[in-house]
C-alpha cells in the first residue's frame, strides 16, 4: 500500500465523516423548520440568520448539560449504548459511491471509500447492527420504560429486516451484482432501478422508515407510551448521541435509497455536462446531484413524520409479517419470472 493511496482514502473518509455529521446536525434544524412550516409556524429563527446557528447552539447545550448516570445502571454498558449507536450509524456510508471517478493530475480518484463486491450486503449488515446500541442502552438504564423501548426496537428491527432483505434480493435479480458502484453504473442514462422495481422500492422505503425508527414506526421511543423509550434515562451528550445517530441513519438510508433505486449520482444528460465542464467539475456536479436526491429523501422522511400518526404495536407487527413479507416474496417471484422470460425470448 503506497502512502498516496492511504492519504487519499484518509482524506476521503474524513471528508465524508465531516459531511455526514454536518448533514445530521443540520437535519435537526431542518426537522424543526419543516415541522414549523407544515404547521403554519416558522420554526427556530433566533440563532443566526433564519436560525442558521441553531444546531451549534443545540450542540453546545448538549455538551453543557449535566450528565446523569442512574445509580443502579450498568455504567459501562450505559456509556457503550449511545457510542455503539453512533458508531453503527457512521460506518454505513463507507460503501456508498458519492460520485464518478475524478481524474486529478493523471491520477484517478474514486469517490468511494471501499468498492467491495458485497456492498449491498454490507449495508444490510450495518443496518442490522444498528439496533445493538438501542438495546444495550435501553437495558443498561435499568428502567422499565427503557427496557420496553429496547425490546420494541429489537423486535421491530428484526421483523423489518426480513422484507428489506427480500426486496433487496428482487433488486439483485435485476442488477446481477452486489457492488454498489456497478449498480450505479448500470443506471446510467435514465435507466433507474425504480422503473424495474417499483414495488420493491416501496417495501424498501417502508422498511427503512422502520429501521431508522422514524414516525410512523417510532415505537421504541414513543413519548406517549414509554416516556422516551430506550433513551428515557439519558441526558446531556449521550442523549445527543442517540439523537444524532437517528439523523445519521436517516442520511445513510436516504443515500442508500438514492443509490439503489434512483440512479445514485446519475442524472439525465450527465455525459453532455461532464464533457462540457471537464473531468474535475463534472464529478462534483454529479456528487451535488446525489446530495440533492439525498436531501429530497430526508425531506420526505420529515414530511411523513409530521403527517402520519404512529402505528399501534400490533399493527406494526401485522404490517411487517403479514403484508410486507408476502409482498416482498411475490415481488421476487414476479421479478424472477419476468427476467427469465425476457432473457429467453428477447
Amino acid at each position, binding site marked *: 500500500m503506497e502512502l498516496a493511496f492511504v492519504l487519499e482514502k484518509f482524506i476521503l473518509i474524513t471528508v465524508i465523516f465531516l459531511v455526514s455529521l454536518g448533514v445530521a446536525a443540520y437535519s435537526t434544524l431542518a426537522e424543526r423548520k419543516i415541522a414549523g*412550516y*407544515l404547521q*403554519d409556524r416558522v420554526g427556530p429563527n433566533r440563532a443566526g440568520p433564519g436560525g442558521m446557528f441553531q444546531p451549534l447552539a443545540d450542540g453546545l447545550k448538549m455538551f453543557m448539560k449535566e450528565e446523569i448516570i442512574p445509580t443502579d445502571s450498568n455504567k459501562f454498558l450505559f456509556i457503550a449504548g449511545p457510542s455503539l449507536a453512533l458508531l453503527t450509524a457512521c460506518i454505513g456510508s463507507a460503501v456508498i459511491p458519492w460520485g464518478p471517478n475524478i481524474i486529478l493530475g493523471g491520477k484517478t480518484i474514486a469517490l468511494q471509500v471501499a468498492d467491495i463486491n458485497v456492498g449491498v450486503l454490507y449495508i444490510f449488515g450495518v443496518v442490522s447492527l444498528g439496533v445493538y446500541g438501542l438495546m444495550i442502552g435501553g437495558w443498561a438504564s435499568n428502567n422499565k420504560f427503557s427496557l420496553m423501548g429496547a425490546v420494541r426496537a429489537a423486535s421491530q428491527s428484526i421483523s423489518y429486516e426480513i422484507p428489506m432483505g427480500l426486496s433487496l434480493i428482487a433488486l439483485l435479480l435485476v442488477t446481477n451484482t452486489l457492488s454498489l458502484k456497478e449498480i450505479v453504473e448500470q443506471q446510467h442514462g435514465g435507466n433507474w432501478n425504480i422503473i424495474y422495481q417499483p414495488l420493491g422500492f416501496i417495501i424498501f422505503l417502508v422498511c427503512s422508515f422502520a429501521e431508522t425508527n422514524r414516525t410512523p414506526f417510532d415505537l421504541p421511543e414513543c413519548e406517549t407510551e414509554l416516556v422516551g423509550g430506550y433513551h428515557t434515562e439519558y441526558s446531556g451528550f449521550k442523549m445527543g448521541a442517540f439523537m444524532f445517530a437517528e439523523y445519521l441513519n436517516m442520511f445513510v438510508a436516504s443515500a442508500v435509497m438514492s443509490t439503489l433505486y434512483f440512479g445514485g449520482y446519475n442524472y439525465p444528460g450527465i455525459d453532455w455536462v461532464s464533457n462540457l465542464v471537464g473531468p474535475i467539475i463534472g464529478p462534483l456536479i454529479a456528487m451535488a446531484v446525489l446530495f440533492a436526491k439525498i436531501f429530497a429523501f430526508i425531506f420526505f422522511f420529515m414530511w*411523513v413524520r409530521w*403527517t402520519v400518526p404512529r402505528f399501534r404495536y400490533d399493527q406494526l407487527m401485522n404490517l411487517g409479517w403479514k403484508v410486507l413479507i408476502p409482498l416482498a416474496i411475490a415481488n421476487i417471484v414476479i421479478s424472477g419470472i419476468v427476467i427469465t422470460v425476457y432473457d429467453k425470448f428477447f
Partner: protein
Amino acid sequence: MDQKPMNFWERMYFPAIFQGMAITFKHMFKKKETIFYPEVEREFSENWRGLHSLKRDELGRERCTACGLCALSCPAEAITMIASERQKGEEHLYREEKYAAVYEINMLRCIFCGLCEEACPKEAIYLDGPIVPADYLRKDFIYGKDKLLEDPIASDLTLNI
C-alpha cells in the same frame, strides 16, 4: 364504537397517507401564524389584564391609602404592603393621610384575576400594563413600588402646598 370493516382501497393505506401528505404540503405555503413577540406585539383585547400599575391622581399624588383590601381579596396572596402615615409636607406626594410605604406584588404568585382592581376603593390599582417579562431569579419577580408606580406627571402640574 362500531367500526365498519375497511374496503380494499382503504386497506391499502397509501391513498389515505398521500391524501394527508398533500394536505400537509399545502400548509407549507400558507400564511404563517407566528407573531414575533418581542418585536411585534399582538393586539390586546379591551379587558386584557397585564402588569399592575399603581395610579396617581390628577395632581400626581399616589392614590393608594394602604387599606389592604387588595391584599385581602387576592386569592393567590401575592400582595404585601406596609402602611405608613403621611407626614407634614408630604401632601403633594400622597392623597390620603395613610399611604403604602412598601407595596410588593409577587408576579410568580399573581394569577392576574383582577380582584385587587375590583376591591380597590380608591381606584389606585389597575392591571393595564404589558405582559410581565421573564427573568432568571425568583427575587426579581417581586415587583416593588419602583416598578409598579405610574410615572409622575409633569412637575409644573403638581400641587405646591
